[in-house]
């Protein structure tokens, strides 16, 4: 066999293996959601069984899925919009008018992501309590915005760097004010990048559990809280938990699937042109 062909086959197999490993928990969760509670904890695990929708019925009866889903959508989209709104001018300034400390600033912003969230739980909780932000959508939107801002700025910065400086300068010569420069030239030119950044931000918000569990109870609780509510004190009901998780991730899974081209672009940070 030609060495190049063999290399290709090995790489393909490795790719499938990695994809399989990553996808397996999701696959198993979906499978479990159609089992009875007894089958769900059976050893050895059963691959073949007669599927039942019983879990989904129970989940529906026990909690108002739509309520949580709407919260998830409002909070994810809201936080993403807010973060983008703040990040665009920041990334514009950093990409086109860098100062001597711009690189340091970017690194510092990223470094805030290295701190465990639990480290600021108490201060944030107290602040939220005093501000009356506990269990409010806007409260979570603020937290998620702050949480994602570094990565959104960083990604937009990378995408903006790809836009030739000349084009913006030509705009400036043509009489564009900074706001027009951003709105009429930079944003249309980096639209794919902005889209993938927003997508990633939505997904990160959607799956965030730490803050939503700590800062919401019912009113503003998103789907992550909905899932958690199925781990009852009496023990874990795997099948019902799986059913809840499946319907919780379904929208974002479909959304991610449809926009996977954009996502891949976003995740490679604009390295692929």
């Amino acid at each position, binding site marked *: 066999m030609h060495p190049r062909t063999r290399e290709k086959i090995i790489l393909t197999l490795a790719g499938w293996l990695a994809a399989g490993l990553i996808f397996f928990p999701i696959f198993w969760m979906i499978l479990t959601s159609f089992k009875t509670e007894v089958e769900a904890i059976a050893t050895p695990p059963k691959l073949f069984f007669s599927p039942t929708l019983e879990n989904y019925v129970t989940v529906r009866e026990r909690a108002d899925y739509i309520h949580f889903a709407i919260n998830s959508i409002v909070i994810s989209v809201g936080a993403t919009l807010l973060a983008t709104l703040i990040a665009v001018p920041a990334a514009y300034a950093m990409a086109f008018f860098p100062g001597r400390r711009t690189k340091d600033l970017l690194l510092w912003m990223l470094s805030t992501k290295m701190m465990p969230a639990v480290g600021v739980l108490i201060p944030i909780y107290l602040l939220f309590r005093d501000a009356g932000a506990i269990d409010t959508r806007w409260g979570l939107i603020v937290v998620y915005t702050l949480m994602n801002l570094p990565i959104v700025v960083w990604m937009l910065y990378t995408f903006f760097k790809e836009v*030739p400086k*000349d*084009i913006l*300068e*030509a*705009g*400036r*010569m*043509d*009489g*564009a004010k900074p706001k*027009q420069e951003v709105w009429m*030239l930079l944003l*249309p*030119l980096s639209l794919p990048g902005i889209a993938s950044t927003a997508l990633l931000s939505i997904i990160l918000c959607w799956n965030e559990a730490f803050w939503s569990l700590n800062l919401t109870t019912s009113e503003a609780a998103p789907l992550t809280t909905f899932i958690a509510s199925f781990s009852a004190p009496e023990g874990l009901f795997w099948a019902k938990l799986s059913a809840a998780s499946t319907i919780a991730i379904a929208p974002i899974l479909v959304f991610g699937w449809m926009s996977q081209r954009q996502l891949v672009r976003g995740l490679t940070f604009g390295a692929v042109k």
Partner: protein
Amino acid sequence: MATIVLKGIEKSYGTVQVIKGIDLSIDDREFCVFVGPSGCGKSTLLRMIAGLEEITEGDLLIDGQKVNDVPPSERGLAMVFQSYALYPHMSVADNMGFSLRLAGVSKEERRAKVAEAARILHLDKFLDRKPKELSGGQRQRVAIGRAIVRKPKVFLFDEPLSNLDAALRVQMRIELARLHDELAATMIYVTHDQVEAMTMADKIVVLQGGIVEQAGTPLELYHHPRNLFVAGFIGSPKMNFLPAMVTAVTDAETTIQLAGGANLAVPVRSGRHKVGDTVTLGVRPEHMGLAGEGEIVGEVMVVERLGGETFLYTQLKDGTMLTVQADGEIPTGVHERIAIRLDSATCHLFDGDGLAIERVQRHPLASLRRMPTHKAS
């Protein structure tokens, strides 16, 4: 009317000074070319005039008004970028009309002005296309059209032809010269190509290391270069330089002896040099010829035949390389020995500091402008 005056212009990035004090005045309707090797500061200087770079020190005056702190769009300039910098998401018409749109000009007026510019540049058929659907030359014309539409007082060109192929470059060169006549505007043009500079300029400004080496008409720079750098930069192939020693000085000429032993009397003014000084003789390839026999003899190492003329790269006895331009018809081949004749009237002499020693006679065409002075309209 648009005159541009630079007074002690300097530019520093942190502690690095890239423009080191430039004084220059550009007349109304003049075609001024900044030329120099890469990194000489010519593009930076243009961007400072445009308002895209801040001026660290000195004054920039447009029509007598200090504009150091005036934003680019209010200086009455238009710029054509090397990369064209067209707006990729807009049609040709929208590209050209963008400045008018920003200025709040009505749609009808915009369309009329764009159509007028498109007519001048033969772009009528492409107005609805996107830049990516155009060829390099067409994109270049759109970039120029975008500038024309604004009716600027001054056009700035930053190496606008360097992305085009050779044939198109020559064609665009002619079109730009024609445009300069038609628009009767002041133009500043940056290039590293001395042929572009020679063919288009009313005034050439030769820059090196952030200073002006010399500014003047193309033929002034060609016939009266101020120093070795300008002498070597203007003209193609480049001027030959030969080390020599002064053996006699009179008011009318200075006699020198070349390293190879040959003697030559060059008509330069006396005063700055004396017998025994080491000088550099400069002679252009086109001012040399082949002689049946002579004192300067060398071996041809490389022959370049261009058809109309032939360049002989010749090594002299002392190892110096000399480029000689000869007739296209000569049969001389590699490794042949040739005798070279120098026309002393066209030779240049440079002192130990590399500065030119003034010639006795000024070349009759040295002050000639590219075109007759414009009549005031």
